[in-house]
């Protein structure tokens, strides 16, 4: 049954259907509707909705609820996500599953509330302290936003690695028809023998990211990085559109990925063989498929709502096999398809 929904609301509904039962938040535009939706709907599903005194408090409440073995989530936007970085590093270190939604806005600093993609590094390179990674998924439609939130809960539980949804203000605010996925039955949610539930008939459980002994801590981190390697092998997701005969492929994600799909259609009408490579998992980044593409496509044009962040991962993956120009917009400016098409025409000629 298709429903017309705002991106923020679809992500909230996706979380509820994934079995999220504790949601902690703090007000910030442009993810306000996600908060409001949770306030109205989560309690009706027997869930806990709590508006915290700060994003710092909210992420630490997530830490507590996750430690207690409940599916839990928080959402915010860029400046708020910066405040959560310490807590996210602790979640990663303590192997606690949790979902963090970032509805990105233009920065740095207070910036504005227009859509942007300037938090890519923060999300994918470990924005907090220490050697950790987050599973980072980037939706480009309202439908995908709902689905990726559910996937985030599943992956986060399976690997005990926090997962982040990297959306932006446009995707959060736009409305589109959505076919909502079926709710996950509670028995499908994996058990958590490690959680703090009261040491009855078992030795005490300790949720911690702390170890003074470097050799022991190294073993803990080696196990963590083994998990990251496994995720890199198994959980890469991307979409290719019209790349089979492409002479230039646009590399873009999220809202930018969506706009570039239109650019591909317009270019094709003008006889330009243009395609799109859209990463869906930003970590693990789809380096392998991008590298294969670079072996036959002469130009990979990265397009971002930033000064170029994913662009670095594109160049790392391509390693000179193809030209990797860049086109970015700053300040919350979202380029139109024609503006991107003009950029494309600098690199290919009909």
């Amino acid at each position, binding site marked *: 049954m298709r429903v017309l929904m705002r991106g923020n609301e679809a992500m909230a509904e996706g979380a509820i259907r994934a079995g999220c039962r504790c949601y902690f938040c703090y007000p910030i535009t442009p993810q306000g509707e996600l908060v409001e939706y949770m306030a109205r709907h989560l309690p009706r599903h027997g869930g806990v909705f709590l508006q915290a005194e700060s994003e710092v408090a909210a992420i630490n409440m997530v830490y507590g609820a996750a430690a207690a073995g409940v599916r839990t989530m928080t959402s915010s936007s860029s400046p708020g996500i910066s405040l959560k970085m310490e807590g996210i590093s602790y979640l990663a270190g303590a192997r606690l599953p949790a979902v963090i939604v970032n509805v990105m806005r233009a920065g740095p600093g207070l910036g504005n509330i227009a859509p942007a993609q300037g938090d890519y590094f923060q999300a994918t390179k470990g924005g907090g302290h220490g050697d950790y990674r987050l599973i980072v998924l980037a939706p480009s439609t309202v439908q995908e936003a709902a689905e990726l939130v559910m996937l985030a809960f599943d992956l986060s539980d399976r690997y005990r690695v926090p997962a982040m949804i990297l959306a932006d203000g446009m995707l959060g605010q736009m409305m589109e028809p959505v076919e909502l996925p079926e709710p996950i039955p509670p028995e499908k949610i994996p058990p958590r023998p490690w959680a703090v*539930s009261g040491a009855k008939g078992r030795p005490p459980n300790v949720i911690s990211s702390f170890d003074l002994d470097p050799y022991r801590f190294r073993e803990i981190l080696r196990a963590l990085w083994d998990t990251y390697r496994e995720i890199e092998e198994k959980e890469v997701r991307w979409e290719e559109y019209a790349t089979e005969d492409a002479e230039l492929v646009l590399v873009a994600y999220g809202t930018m990925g969506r706009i570039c799909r239109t650019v591909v259609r317009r270019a094709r009408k003008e006889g330009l063989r243009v395609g799109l490579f859209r990463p869906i998992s930003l970590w693990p980044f789809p380096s392998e498929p991008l590298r294969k593409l670079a072996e036959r496509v002469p130009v990979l044009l990265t397009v971002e709502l930033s000064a170029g962040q994913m662009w670095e991962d594109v160049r790392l993956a391509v390693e000179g096999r193809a030209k990797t120009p860049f086109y970015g917009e700053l300040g919350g400016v979202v380029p139109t398809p024609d503006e991107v098409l003009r950029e494309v025409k600098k690199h290919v000629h009909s």
Partner: protein
Amino acid sequence: MSTVEAKAPAGFAPVYTRPKSLSAARFTYCPGCHHGIITRLLAEAIDELGIVERTVGIAPVGCAVFLYEFFRCDFVQAAHGRACAVATGIKRANPDLIVFSYQGDGDLAAIGTAETVHAANRGENITVIFVNNQIYGMTGGEMAPTTLPGMRTVTTPEGRDVRTTGYPLRMSEMLAQLEGPAYITRQAVFDVRHVQMARKAIIKAFQNQIEGKGFSLVEIVAACPTNLRLSPPEAGRWVAEQALKYFPLGDLKVRE
């Protein structure tokens, strides 16, 4: 780790034996540190109420950072200052658990002020043990929000100057103004009489949580012999004679 088995020697009956909810691990506190007494009282309270199997403790960052090693109940390590938020998350996720946070003055009254004030203001049904020893012990003796005026620390080498660092922060008085808390009390452990009173206060704070009365906080004015550069007995006297001037003992809020 050698421990004295709690078997009474022949012909003798036990008067005091090691609390059951303590693990076998040795405490990591300095000799004579009041943290050790408070940690032991915490275990006595958990034993008395028979709740070790449903209790979850939150370990702070500070001298009590190893707290989870000393107990037989589940534990969660919180980031510095965030224990009250972590406790909130756990309690909201599973209200059947008895949740307590154990925090020092830097953890609770400096970096964790907002988390503490708002957990109290929400009347969160948790128990907070607040060890006020007027110093950052673990990191080497820096000034804390509760350091007394004129007191020398590694960050106030000439003595705390109130003109530039302000006055000792009275968290219990602040929190007692709020509607949320059910019980705010300030105790001490520098002699046996006060140890006994502190023990009752901790038990009451846990009892409140069991009965769902809401936020309870027990502040304990404690001594850090190492940073006071006093012997443990002298450090206790220093608390009694100096610290209590700023931190008067007694119940600040009791909601029956």
